[in-house]
């Protein structure tokens, strides 16, 4: 461990200390490991130990729309596209990935105002649109890169390359976990869902200690997590663990190394995870009404699969998991494959239609369920892809990538529902009013979690790194 590079010049920070002990899930104290309370609560009254100031939320659910949702067909409708449908773009077009640029293309979806707040949206996501008053829509997002893998890394880590910690890892590092039997950062998958382009590195802890890495739970498979299924019967395993504990104790006594004690305790945690994870994924106890709410009764298998992720996400939040990321399932339309389901370079009507049908009911159900259970006020839900799509067509029926302007929405704890932030130009090509970056997004989310994005740092390779690189500002107008 290289924590000691710090020690000669300044006192140990709390995080350095936790890191030195490196006890698995976040910053749990040693003693807590052996407590009999299976489901942890926040560590004491007042502020959680890691926050810089009062938090508005404790959990994040990232509904990641890998491949790039078209903002023009969803949360940033543009009447101008209909008026100028088929015309040439009136402004120079920036280089695109496939260099197969067509003319302006109207959205196949109709738009109107929704909710008391009257946010204009299309009917691509009819259920989510009904919840307009919960949403803070940012219509002026921008990102630095124009391809999926780098876009995914940019959105997740603040850097367009592998190696840096994902937002979920930073969150776990900053706040620790509330549940010692479950990881702080969980990625859910179901059906044929795969990691976004760029691979599992998108969920990596980067240079943060390994315990901050995401655990990928495949919620409709058994086992949901690699190596979680015991090879042995419970009785036999308890015997084995007893034997291991007895011999380890003797070794530890002679070796006198605290690391070893920590490693010993991991067995206790691992043992309990074997029960906690299957229990978590077992949704047989949920009511029919709940199942319906999440779309589990749908005749679209993709909706059912995604709905299951949403339902398990709620169960994770209930159990104190900090950061949950949801994975879309490819409909196999346009160029959208497993790593980029929303990537409709062709057939956007069919592709976005199928993808929206997959996530609309489950996500709306999740928001409603979190709200009815009082969990939404502690949870920030984020809906975003890695970039948006172009106002002009590609190959006649699709849209190319657009990193210059796109939309996302947030909902939940500390978020100003029913609000719209920033704007793109009349064609939805460039963000023109209050352009926002991925850094701004995470600065704001960390702020909601009670963390100052400039102070949540980690020293690696001679530099203090942040989720927001050297940029980022808290988007005050998004805050309730």
């Amino acid at each position, binding site marked *: 461990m290289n924590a000691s590079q710090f020690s000669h010049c300044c006192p140990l920070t709390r995080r350095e200390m936790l890191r030195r002990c490196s*006890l*698995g899930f976040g910053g749990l104290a040693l003693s807590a490991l052996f407590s009999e309370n299976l489901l942890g609560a926040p560590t004491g009254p007042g502020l959680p130990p890691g926050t810089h100031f009062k938090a508005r939320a404790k959990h994040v659910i990232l509904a990641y729309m890998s491949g790039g949702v078209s903002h023009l067909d969803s949360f940033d409708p543009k009447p101008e596209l209909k008026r100028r449908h088929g015309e040439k773009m009136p402004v120079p077009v920036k280089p695109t990935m496939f260099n197969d640029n067509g003319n302006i293309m109207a959205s196949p979806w109709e738009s109107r105002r929704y909710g008391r707040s009257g946010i204009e949206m299309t009917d691509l996501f009819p259920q989510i649109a009904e919840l307009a008053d919960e949403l803070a829509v940012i219509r002026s997002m921008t990102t630095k890169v124009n391809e999926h893998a780098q876009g995914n890394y940019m959105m997740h880590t603040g850097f367009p390359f592998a190696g840096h910690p994902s937002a979920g890892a930073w969150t776990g590092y900053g706040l620790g976990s509330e549940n010692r039997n479950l990881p702080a950062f969980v990625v859910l998958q179901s059906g044929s869902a795969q990691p976004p382009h760029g691979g599992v590195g998108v969920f990596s802890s980067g240079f943060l200690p390994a315990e901050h890495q995401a655990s990928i739970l495949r919620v409709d498979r058994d086992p949901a997590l690699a190596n979680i299924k015991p090879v042995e019967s419970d*009785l036999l395993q308890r015997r084995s663990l007893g034997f291991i504990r007895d011999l380890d104790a003797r070794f530890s006594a002679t070796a006198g190394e605290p690391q070893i004690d920590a490693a010993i305790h991991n067995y206790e945690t691992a043992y309990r995870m074997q029960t906690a994870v299957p229990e978590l994924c077992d949704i047989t106890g949920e009511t029919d009404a709940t199942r319906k709410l999440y779309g589990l009764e749908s005749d679209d298998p993709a909706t059912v699969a995604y709905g299951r992720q949403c339902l398990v996400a709620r169960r994770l939040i209930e159990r104190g998991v900090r950061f949950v990321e949801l994975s879309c399932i490819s409909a196999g339309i346009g160029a959208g494959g497993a790593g980029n389901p929303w990537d409709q370079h062709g057939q956007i009507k069919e592709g976005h239609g199928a993808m929206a049908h997959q996530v609309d009911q489950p996500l709306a159900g999740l928001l409603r369920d979190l709200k009815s259970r009082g969990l939404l006020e502690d949870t920030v839900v984020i809906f975003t892809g890695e970039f948006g799509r172009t106002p002009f067509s590609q190959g006649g029926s699709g849209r190319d990538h657009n990193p210059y302007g796109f939309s996302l929405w947030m909902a939940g704890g500390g978020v100003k529902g029913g609000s719209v932030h920033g704007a793109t130009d009349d064609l939805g090509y460039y963000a023109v009013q209050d352009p926002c970056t991925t850094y701004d997004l995470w600065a704001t989310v960390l702020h909601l979690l009670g963390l100052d994005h400039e102070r949540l740092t980690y020293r690696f390779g001679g530099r203090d790194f942040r989720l927001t690189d050297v940029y980022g500002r808290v988007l005050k107008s998004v805050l309730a």
Partner: protein
Amino acid sequence: MQHTGKTKASGMWTKRIASLCLLGSVAAHGATPEQIDFFEQRIRPVLANECYECHGPAKQKGGLRLDFRAGLLKGGDSGPALVPGDSKASLIMQSIRHEIADSEMPKKRPKLADAVIADFAGWVDQGAPDPRDQPAAATAVSKAADWEATFEARKDWWSFKPVRLPTLPAVTNGAWSDHPVDRFLLAKMEERGLEPAASADRRTLIRRVTFALTGLPPTLAEIRGFLDDAAPDAYLKVVDRLLASPRFGEHWARHWMDLVRFAETHGSEGDPDIPNAWRYRDYLVRAFNADVPWDQLIREHLAGDLLAKPRLNDAEGFNESLLGLAHFRLVEHGFNPVDTLDEQVKTIDSQIDVVTKAFQGLTVSCARCHDHKFDPIGQRDYYALQGVFGSVRPTQLTIDQPERLRVRRPELETLKAEIKSGLAEAWEKSAHRLTEDLLARLRSGGTNAPAILGDDFRDRIGRLQQRVAEIDNLGREAVLRLRGVTNANQGSARPMAAWTFDGDARDSVGGLNGELVGGAFVRDGRLIVDGKGAYLRTAPLDRPLREKTLEIWVAPANLDQRGGGVITVQSEDGAVFDSIVFAEKEPRRWLAGSDGFRRSRNLDGPAETAAAGALVHLVAVYRTNHSIALFRDGAAYGAAYTPPGDGATLRTFEPQSARVLLGMRHTGGGSPFFAGEIEEARLYDRALEPDEVAASFRAGPGLISPDAIAQALTPDQRAVREGRLAEIADLRRVLAQRYPDYAERDAERIRRNSAFGVATKDGTHPLGVWSRLSTHAAESFAGEWRALSAKQNEESAERRKSNADTFRPAWDFAGKGADGWFRYGANPPEVVARPGEFTVQPEGERILAGLLPAGVFSHRLSERHNGVFASPRFKVSSDRISVRVVGGKGARIRLITDNYPIGQGNIFPQANLNSDAPTWITLDTAYRRDSTAYLEFATAEDVTSRDRSPAGPGGRSFFGVERVVFHDGQQPPMEEANASTGLFEAGPPASAEDLSKRIGDRLVQAVEAWRRDSLSEGDRVFLDAFIRSGQLPTSLAELPAVATDVLEYRRLEGEIPLPRRVPGVMEGTAYDAPLLSRGDHRKPMDPVPRGYLPLIDSHPYATQGSGRLELANDIADPGNPLTSRVLVNRIWHCLFGRGLVGTVDNFGRLGETPSHPELLDFLALRFIEHGWSSKELIRCLVTTRAYQLSSTASERAGQVDPSDEWLSHARVRRLEAESIRDSLLAISGRLDSAMFGPGSDALAPPAEQRRRSVYLTVKRNFPSPFLETFDAPKPFTTLGQRDATNVPAQSLALLNDPFVVEQAAQWAVSMLGAESDPDARVRRMFEIAFARPPDDGELALCRTYLDDLAKDPHGGEAERVWRDFGQSLFNLKEFIYLR
């Protein structure tokens, strides 16, 4: 850079200070020169270094500026920063003394040294004399004076000072050890009142040193051997044995791989392979085993291609030094970046980062956007290095020693000259007959070929053959009736190709012979493919294929496999294909596969249930109405469908650029291989009807052989047939006797006749002109000739003008050769100065394809010669670039912008070459206009694109270039002359007969000129037209006199070894990189001369090259204060668990200072003295007494030195991920100790994971979950110091991972066989796992546990019990920790 480096420049620095002082004394009112001197030397550097960043031109935190006098006096939000003359009352003093809470300065940095604080106090008390009248300028680069001051201040840091030989310290307990290293360590211990711990016992020691040196546990025999060896040098013998073990290199190579972020894929979307990256891993293993000096390794890493004396590996026949360059290419690459310059900046940043961290312990890449915040590294210095790395180009380097690949050249040259002379002779003869032939045609009205004496025999033979065929047809029908095909016509659809595997992979119908690839083989009439890379690939199609039917009889090896193709037609690169695919989208279901599933659909056919070895008959029919139908065992497999949308229409596969594959879905995607046996496959160039499919199913596999036909005939039929055959034989004999040259002349007539129609329809062919004019009578002939001539001249003139107006000539290799271009390869592409060169075809009936123009060619002697031909760097200034080229078999031309090596798709201009005749290829470069780029021609395996195309059979590939032009319009240049142009140079012929003579004579002259090597380009085109149109003989059959030489040529050519390659870099156009303002590639400033850090070498590199050689010399220089310190510290870290400098990758100011600075210098100098030998140093260190101490800390050590900084006892350490995995394999007895070669799949099932971890393929997007769980590094930057975390996933892996369970099971089996007594077995297993037997208490615990296991109702049998017991031992901490 104005600041200075190296000590020799210090005099200059003093002068500079003096001049600054002079300026200052005028400006600073009343200050004395001494005071100004003091400010410049002691105060300004600190202010610039520590304060300007937040209180300078860019930022003014708290409203405060400290970069000029008035700013200090005015102060910020909290008032004036200082009170001249009163340091106590000055805010700046309170804050640097940390007297004000929340305002401790410098913020987030170490407190200033007491001496510095005292300087400031003195300065303020003196009245704070300050010459700075003006604020510093707000530019990205610090103002020169400020930077110089900062630089000098920062240079005063321990690691930048020369390494000095220390004196051995005095110690009290001199008797403890006489090892000098121990002396240094003991001195520090004694200073702190520590005493060294007792020595470790022998068992602990052998486990410790075996893991440290080889990454593996000691074997039982090794342990016992050491215990039993009473000699005083027993330990030394162990050490020497370990150093000599091949396992040593495997372990230490992995340490080095951590430094260069080793990976074998580029990550990002698609995670494309870095082909041959494993060779670099092998290079390291060999280098460590051979103890190659580390300064040599550094030179090879930076400039392995430029060394005067490269290190040759004679056993392997390659140049080892080249392999070091691979680390430059192990970068992550973005997927098809729109902005390639941005990508290049990131790539070079990674290269600079790795080189400077790994070898210098410096974080130079922190200076990309601004001067380094802590170290004496300016932003300019960063760009001096960027120029060095930008001046090289990514490539696949051929590593063979040139003499290995330059074989057979003289023999081939000789043979080729003989072949040429034989050809010339035959052609002259044939050319002489051309006039005769043409005249005969004129006589017969222009179409008929001349009669030859002997034609009557031929006619009689033909009639007899017709009779035999009629009888054969009767036999055929009889065979089919026997097979149950009622209407014989139905079962006799004629394929265009069929593979029956009767002994080989030949096409028994057409010419699509198969080549067996990747271990595919033919056995018992079937093609066997393994699903892991074995497949059959045919020769390219010889005609276009549109409507088609694929048919196959196949037996799947298993039904759980996914996604393998059984029969495929694909474009050369696999981008477009149609295939019958098993279980790709749905398990066990067949699918008509296609590129991106564009023409595929899930079909409602039954799930496959065929038993192993049982044949399934599959047919896919593609119709011109775009419908697709699949059939299984003769019945429709789901409904026929017509796919909608883009790319869904029927595809045309073009001749020479498409092939058939068997056992593979297509080239370039996922896991395309099928496992099973293929009985027979057929390809039809039409769509079979359903009843034909059904009939074919009933008829079954096996094209009907002549024998089968003969057997099916009635005796009468057979007798008639044999009689006719005998008659035919007789006639042939007589013909040959009477007209000995009949065969030759008949062959020529057939050839010419079949080609005549094509040639005469071509208006540019001389025979086209002849054909056009031949009908004109003598009186009108001259007039027609003149009209045609005028038209041709006019057209030529128009084309010349249009070409001159439209195209900018860029390079003409026929005219000027290859000046300025780069030619790479052991047999580099050759400049051919004269038109008329030819190449001997490596296979097939044709000896040559045609004649080549002058230019640069890769294949003058062999298509097994590989090479790269690349242009200088230029700015793309046109929308298109056209090249006149030949080439094929995967060779490609690419426009490479900003050195991005792996582009594909239409935003990366490139094209496969697919013609053996010179042709124009146009690249659309509009998208990349204004980029900096170069053109690269490369043979197949030398192409670095992610979608590179496979080489042809035998690894052949070739290209040749004649000209390059730039233009904006769509069309390439028009041909200004053609094969007929020369005919019109003379006056009109009198008649068609006269023209026939003129053409014939001219052909004779052209052949003679060719023979004499004096062919003009015009005559080359003329002659080539006759060769390519089949008017001159080129086949082996027609040229028996040449055939022997050709076959010998082919045999020798086939002996040329195929080159071996490694990812690397090569020199390109050298240039100085511009400084990028704030690191933004869109804001280039002035170029910075190439060079290294002024900290080490202040002189820009005087070189026409990239500067890598100079850089290598700077870094590997014994006088470089960082290199040897950094390297010995790395070795120390690996052995003692922590470096003498804890931050092994950072020797800068944010790093730690050395715990034992004198020892570090002692070792650094010693390392150089001993020739940078790592083995020598390791031997020296592990034979210290300190290394052999017990890990038990004394009570005092526990109190005063809990982190064991002073090494009074051994540190307990967790094993690295690879050692944990390798130990499991070693102990289970399953370790496959094979060294070297392509890596094994890290995600394979446990039974297939038997090699050492260092040989697992490292894929960025698919890391080994097991290794990652135990902190294997993520390959993105130098990591000299791994984490050793504790996470539950580690426990879960050791408890439940099938790989671990598998090893425990294997171990149990071997232990049950080795010891019959359970106690003895426990003792043995303990000793294997921990190098020690259990004590009594442990043994008792084991007995109880084993009893419990045996009683368990779920298990109980011995193997299960001992498996569980063994696995529990794996789970003990002692297993993964070293004491």
